[in-house]
């Protein structure tokens, strides 16, 4: 093949040429080429195969409206499977492959599918999914469908930047109307952004030789210079892909091949759309053949790339045909004028067009240029539900200015204004915020309808292989509404989102139903206007950045002790200490704690201070348990409920003094509890009488737990000595440690005597080191969260969210007192007395045991009643091998569990059934003698 350029196009530099590959063949392209323009310059006409029937397909358009030319591109060892050839800039050494074609576009062994079309028509997917079983067809269809093969490569640097910007006026589109609007607004002193998705600004205009009496290209250059001089921000390669609430515009800025695009979230006070219009195809027999081009694309390739689509070109156009004729003639291209309105045209050719048949003649051509009218690009307008109006003389839906969304304006061809003078004067008015009523009646464009013959070879959506016949079938099968037809035929649902096919589809539907197009209506446009890589929305929020873990102040110390750091409720905390098998370490840490003592970093525990004259009554309302009678120095365990009565959090409340409390909630619920406290404080209470302060990050807490805990704490350099007879369970006191406040609370999650020691985070390392040093000769050492979790299970203590679900109420867990006796109002109170709450078959908190030699019961296993069809009557929520009891133990929720103690119950897991014994949830120190030891 050889390069065939009629002249040097404006966008390409024919002095800078280089090699690239297409389906293994080496070709030459030039700087400024898109993949499509380079292929056309090399005489490549067949670029891919149709999605469903594998018919040969070529380039139709020259920009984002392109439905066919999707290729797979490899450059510098990076492969992207679905590049649009018409928008991807060609680079040296690119390896371009056709998709949906094996082994190449020109020779496709699945081309035979073309003959099976009868069975793959409208509703094919609907019918296949339903009958007899989708799974029979799935492998075959999956293999055939899709556009390219997903690369197994992972680009670690494929991460999008994200910027947040604001401006007074955003102009989308740098055609004549957009340029004039941007210049007018910028020169009026507004902060203006002008964006265009093309690589070169102002290159989209090729219809007019002169604008305002000046050569078009120099007019464009003058406008751009003035816009920049007036201080506007101007970006090419930048697509406005969506408009969202409150005038937020998503801008995708391309960064080069296989580089993640940048996302700019631009908030504009006014948005002026100058997005132009897209050429419509014509419906005739074999209108999908390679070598058939849209009129604007043919002009674009000619004027910007110096590429002629053919030497003897058929021209079937209902708009500006004379003008196009002249342009072609000027480039010595022979033009065969055709009449698409009155003639039933028929394209002939196997792999590409060879001739066009009319009713009277057969014309040999090597390309066919068509224009079936223009469709204003109103996607962004529609994203904000802008009103549309049917403009009969141009057969198009145009934006209705009387139903404009806030801050949204539209000018130029996108507004249906097809004469340059009208478009420019209207754009000036709109740019300075003046009312303007442009004349849309100046131009008339007919809309040729589908022909009655050969309806199965008049293609509406070439990307999804939908024909006029498919629309007929949909209507016959009563999928008559426009939204149904769209889904039944998949018309307009491909990657191109129907940019060329939507209006043809509406017209065919109207035609079939013998109604007008506005009566048929229009489907909804939704963002994005073009495909946007998902990483662009996510930006830097990946991996650890997507949900950064909260970190302990002592994390480096734990790492030095060889801690296995795991995520618990959003915090990175030591699960256990040491290398090797987790279960051995966990068992050893449990036994160490039960026999000597364990030292645990509990800094993640919530510490929310609630103070003020109304604090006591406020907490009494927010908590299930009574707090109105909690004395200073005392601590009480309690639940926070939702208004629906389910347990939201458990924790302990300290009474610091009459008007000051400390809410020590679960580490994973701190943010939620704080929000809950704040919302009740401000909505329903006097916020000037209560103050809520989250001090979680200001305090480090280290728990010493086990029979030696007292000895260890008393060996610290403290001004007091703890005396267990006076310092009872669920009390706290304040002391000083190294000149800082030390809070000591006697509370326990392990079942052993425990002291929670809290110091300002600055003192955490000193306290931790002191405790480890003192503990060491007593065989006490660091304790991880896994061992603590085993010990709390031995004790039958719950973890809210693990052992409870959204239906668990406090009385299901055995906490019945406040429900029966608390007289003051509290959150969730009334919900505890509904019929459901009183049901005798509620799932209640129980323990399970199995004989020592049997395997552990899996967490998540269902407890089932007997019978042929077992029904779930509960679920296992926690299960461990207890090192203390030397046997498996489990906990869970079981219907009427409290009445079933001692019974055997069936456990169902993954189709297997076993037996377990229902027991009290407390397996260890049932009398509490160790806990309350004094």
């Amino acid at each position: 093949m050889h390069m065939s350029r009629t002249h040097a196009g404006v966008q390409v530099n024919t002095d800078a040429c280089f090699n690239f590959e297409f389906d293994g063949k080496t070709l030459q392209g030039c700087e400024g080429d898109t993949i499509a323009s380079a292929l056309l310059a090399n005489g490549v006409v067949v670029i891919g195969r149709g999605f469903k029937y594998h018919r040969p397909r070529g380039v139709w358009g020259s920009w984002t409206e392109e439905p066919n030319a999707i290729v797979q591109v490899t450059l510098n060892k990076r492969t992207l499977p679905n590049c649009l050839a018409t928008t991807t800039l060609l680079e040296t050494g690119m390896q371009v492959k056709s998709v949906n074609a094996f082994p190449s576009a020109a020779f496709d062994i699945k081309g035979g599918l073309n003959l099976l079309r009868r069975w793959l028509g409208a509703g094919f997917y609907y019918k296949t999914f339903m009958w007899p079983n989708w799974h029979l067809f799935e492998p075959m269809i999956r293999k055939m469908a899709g556009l390219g093969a997903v690369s197994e490569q992972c680009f670690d640097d494929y991460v999008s930047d994200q910027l947040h910007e604001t401006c007074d006026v955003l102009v989308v589109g740098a055609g004549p109307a957009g340029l004039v609007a941007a210049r007018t607004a910028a020169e009026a002193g507004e902060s203006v952004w002008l964006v265009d998705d093309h690589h070169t600004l102002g290159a989209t205009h090729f219809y007019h030789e002169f604008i305002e009496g000046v050569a078009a290209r120099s007019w464009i250059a003058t406008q751009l210079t003035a816009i920049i001089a007036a201080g506007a921000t101007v970006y090419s390669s930048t697509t406005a892909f969506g408009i969202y609430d409150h005038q937020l515009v998503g801008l995708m800025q391309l960064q080069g091949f296989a580089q993640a695009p940048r996302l700019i979230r631009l908030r504009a006070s006014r948005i002026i759309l100058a997005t132009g219009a897209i050429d419509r195809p014509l419906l005739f027999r074999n209108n999908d053949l390679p070598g058939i081009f849209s009129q604007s694309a043919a002009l674009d390739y000619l004027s910007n790339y110096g590429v002629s689509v053919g030497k003897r070109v058929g021209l079937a156009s209902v708009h500006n045909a004379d003008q196009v004729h002249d342009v072609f003639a000027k480039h010595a291209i022979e033009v065969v004028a055709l009449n698409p309105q009155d003639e039933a045209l028929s394209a002939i050719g196997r792999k590409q067009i060879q001739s066009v048949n009319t009713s009277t003649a057969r014309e040999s051509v090597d390309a066919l240029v068509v224009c079936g009218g223009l469709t204003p690009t109103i996607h962004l307008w529609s994203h904000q539900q802008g009103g549309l109006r049917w403009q009969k003389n141009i057969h198009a839906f145009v934006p209705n200015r009387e139903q404009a969304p806030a801050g949204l304006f539209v000018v130029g061809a996108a507004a249906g204004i097809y004469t340059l003078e009208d478009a420019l004067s209207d754009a000036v008015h709109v740019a300075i915020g003046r009312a303007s009523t442009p004349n849309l009646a100046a131009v008339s464009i007919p809309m040729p309808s589908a022909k009655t013959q050969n309806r199965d070879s008049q293609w509406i959506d070439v990307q999804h292989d939908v024909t006029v016949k498919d629309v007929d079938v949909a209507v016959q099968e009563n999928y008559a509404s426009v939204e149904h037809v769209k889904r039944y035929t998949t018309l307009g649902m491909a990657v191109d989102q129907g940019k060329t096919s939507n209006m043809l589809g509406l017209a065919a539907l109207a035609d079939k139903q013998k109604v007008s197009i506005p009566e048929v209506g229009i489907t909804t446009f939704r963002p994005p206007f073009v495909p946007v890589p998902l990483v662009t929305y996510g930006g830097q929020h990946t991996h650890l950045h997507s949900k950064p873990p909260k970190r302990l102040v002592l994390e480096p110390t734990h790492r030095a002790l060889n801690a296995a750091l795991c995520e618990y409720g959003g915090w990175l905390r030591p699960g256990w200490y040491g290398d090797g098998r987790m279960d051995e370490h966990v068992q050893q840490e449990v036994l160490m704690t039960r026999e000597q003592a364990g030292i645990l970093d509990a800094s993640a525990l919530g510490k929310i201070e609630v103070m003020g004259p109304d604090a006591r009554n406020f907490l009494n309302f927010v908590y299930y348990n009574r707090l109105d009678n909690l004395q200073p120095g005392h601590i009480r365990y309690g639940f926070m409920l939702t208004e629906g009565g389910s347990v939201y959090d458990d924790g302990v409340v300290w009474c610091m003094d009459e008007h000051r409390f400390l809410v020590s909630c679960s580490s994973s619920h701190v943010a939620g509890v704080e929000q809950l406290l704040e919302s009740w404080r401000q909505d329903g209470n006097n916020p000037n009488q209560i103050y809520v302060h989250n001090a979680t990050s200001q305090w480090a807490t280290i728990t010493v737990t086990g029979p030696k805990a007292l000895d260890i704490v008393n060996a610290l350099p403290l001004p007091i000595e703890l005396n267990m007879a006076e310092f009872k369970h669920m009390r706290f006191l304040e002391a000083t440690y190294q000149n800082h406040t030390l809070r000591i609370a006697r509370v326990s999650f392990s079942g052993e005597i425990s002291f929670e020691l809290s110091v300002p985070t600055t003192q955490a390392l000193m306290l931790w080191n002191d405790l480890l040093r003192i503990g060491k000769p007593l065989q006490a050492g660091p304790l991880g969260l896994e061992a603590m979790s085993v010990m709390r299970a031995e004790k039958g203590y719950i973890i809210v969210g693990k052992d409870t679900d959204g239906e668990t109420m406090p009385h299901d867990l055995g906490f019945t007192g406040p429900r029966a006796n608390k007289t003051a109002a509290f959150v969730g109170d009334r919900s505890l007395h509904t019929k459901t709450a009183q049901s005798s078959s509620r799932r209640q908190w129980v323990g399970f045991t199995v004989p020592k030699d049997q395997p552990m019961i899996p967490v998540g296993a269902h407890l089932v009643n007997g019978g042929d069809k077992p029904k779930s009557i509960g679920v296992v929520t926690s299960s461990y091998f207890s090192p203390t009891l030397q046997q498996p133990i489990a906990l869970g929720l079981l219907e009427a569990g409290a009445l079933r103690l001692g019974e055997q119950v069936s456990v169902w897991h993954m189709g297997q059934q076993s037996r377990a014994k229902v027991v009290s949830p407390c397996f260890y120190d049932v009398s509490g003698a160790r806990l309350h030891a004094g």
Partner: protein
Amino acid sequence: MQQFPCPFCGERDEREFHFLAEAGKERPNTTVSIDDETWARYLYKQRNEKGEVQEIWMHLTCREVFLLKRHSVTMAVSESVSLRQGC
């Protein structure tokens, strides 16, 4: 992405806010006997209006709870009002 005006902080992106409830819902006095119907209405019944709505939102970054008046169809925000009196 919508923008809401916090009475303290001014216009901020909607993701900084948390919806709490429709405005005007009063918690029944639960210290006296109330029927299931009354309680269920308080718990579950939402006006869910099309058009002008009044809602209680929290600005999570400053924790101010306030009344927001907005339009549920056009998404236009008309006003935000502090719940506090005289400060």
